[in-house]
């Protein structure tokens, strides 16, 4: 707590596009009163000062190198509450796609003949390295949800992240279902909270917010197969953001 009684919060980034931090800046523009409720002591996207006495840490990005681990652990040491900010931190997201190919191949593809100058390993969600208290899902995060989470944390409550599928928000918006239009969509197994923004603007949901805790995986696979998708196409659409989770599950099953 700072002298003025406001909790101190800090933002950190790892491997990510920084879109979630930009969304935080957007939320601040919509809700400048947020700054009456908290004190931001570190936020590289928005300010140059740096304070190390934060209570709440918002971490954007995946862990993709050995050297990320010590930094993550130091943040965990300091913060009372650690929140994963966005799909990269929450799921490893698109960063995990590289684990579908041999690492050396990926490094050569990205860095060419300088490939061994840059350290990297398989991308993981930060939860694979340190305990995480809460996650704000999405690629990028939803600005209203970010504010709702901050409010909940200030009140000492569990953040209100839905555990029902995107279809709920989609139907209540009176969208025409992608399946009715002859397309496929992962909305039935994906965690709501984004306001079904993709189907609302005519694109299929790709599960950037991760799966609900009890998805009917077998049934959605049947639905995708019935829609004419090959096994490979099903895997591709299914793992756009969830490669890490799907692989972990397969490893657990052996």
């Amino acid at each position, binding site marked *: 707590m700072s002298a003025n009684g406001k909790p101190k919060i800090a933002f950190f980034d790892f491997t990510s596009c920084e879109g979630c931090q930009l969304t935080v800046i957007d939320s601040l523009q919509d*809700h400048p*009163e*947020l700054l*009456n*409720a908290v004190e931001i002591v570190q936020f590289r996207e928005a300010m140059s000062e740096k304070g190390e006495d934060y209570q709440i840490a918002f971490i954007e990005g995946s862990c993709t190198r050995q050297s990320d681990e010590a930094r993550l652990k130091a943040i965990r040491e300091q913060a009372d509450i650690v929140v994963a900010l966005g799909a990269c931190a929450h799921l490893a997201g698109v960063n995990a796609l590289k684990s579908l190919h041999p690492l050396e191949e990926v490094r050569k593809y990205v860095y060419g003949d300088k490939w061994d100058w840059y350290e990297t390993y398989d991308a993981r969600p930060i939860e694979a390295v340190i305990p995480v208290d809460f996650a704000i899902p999405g690629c990028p995060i939803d600005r209203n949800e970010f*504010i*709702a989470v*901050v*409010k909940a944390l*200030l*009140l000492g409550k569990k953040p*209100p992240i839905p*555990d*029902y*599928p995107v*279809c*709920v928000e989609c*139907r*209540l918006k*009176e*969208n*025409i*279902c992608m*399946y009715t239009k002859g397309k496929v969509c992962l*909305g*039935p*197994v994906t965690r709501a909270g984004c306001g079904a923004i993709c189907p609302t603007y005519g694109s299929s949901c790709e599960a950037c917010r991760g799966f*609900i*805790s*009890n998805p*009917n995986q*077998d*049934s*959605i696979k*049947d*639905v995708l197969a019935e829609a004419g998708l090959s096994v490979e196409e099903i895997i591709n659409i299914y793992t756009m953001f969830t490669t890490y989770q799907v692989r972990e599950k397969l490893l657990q099953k052996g």
Partner: protein
Amino acid sequence: MSLAILSKPAFRDFVARLLADYRVAGPVAHNGSFIFDEIRDPSELHMDYPTTLLPPKKFLLPIREVLFRFKRQDGGVLQAPPETPPTVLLGVHTCDLHAIQLLDTVFSSGHYDIHYVNRRKKTLIVSIECLGPCDEHSFCKSMGTLTADEGYDLHLTDLGDQYAVDVGTQAGKELLEKYASAKPADKEDVQRLNAVISAKWPRFSYRLDFDVSELPSVLELGMKSPLWEELGQRCLACAACTNVCPTCFCFDVKDEVELNLVDGQRVRQWDSCQLDEFATVAGGHNFRASRALRQRHRFMRKGKYILDAHKHLGCVGCGRCARACIVDITPVGVFNELYRQQQAGS
């Protein structure tokens, strides 16, 4: 009560005049389909729409509504939300009309719901007779909702160049007198109306393989059917079926606070028995944890429990859930399958 005739241009004038004094909502085009929405001009209306994505229920039980505002200090000062304006709901089909009658019963008996009832009292309903099935999913004829003799203030039947207007209530009579230039129906008009109505019935087919009066017992006998397990395997628990249903009325209530952590509001929003979290109670126990049990519960409510409790069937045969379900779980399919199993077993 009585029958009047309103030419199509006179109907447009009627709506235009209503707009001056009422919030007017009706069927409008939306993304290649239709929805109920507020209109600003009579030309937005599509009175001959087949069906809508969500039912007109949303004007009586909003998807999300503020129940009251509060302060988390000074003993929690309460403030009522702004009142709903007087509203005319145009173009309600008879299936939805039956559903509204059920909602009226539910929200005014037992726990009297002041929010619903206040809004309902300020809403006048101008319904319209369907002259052909809205699509292959409807089964209103089987459910006895293909027409209605009450529940409306005014009820329209399209006679081509004019509407026959059946006056259902005193309020409807006054509305018509004040805002419309209608003429009383003469003998010829009544004959035309009768011809249109008798021509419509053969266009609809019965889709239940048994009489609807048997539905409660079909369900009761089907409690232990293996069908529920099969539905549970297919069901995605996406809640599309309940969210589009005109008779579903479950909601969730929660408090939201502003960033000052002092001012807040209590809101309610539609909830669904098909969602995992719905039957989870404090302590984490979920008393309907399986999708099979939740599907069974849903159909039991539609065809039996609600009838037992409220004297109206919980399904009006509008077909919206069948249209919406990605894995083809439909009331007609379920009811007929249970009946078939029972016929085969007896």
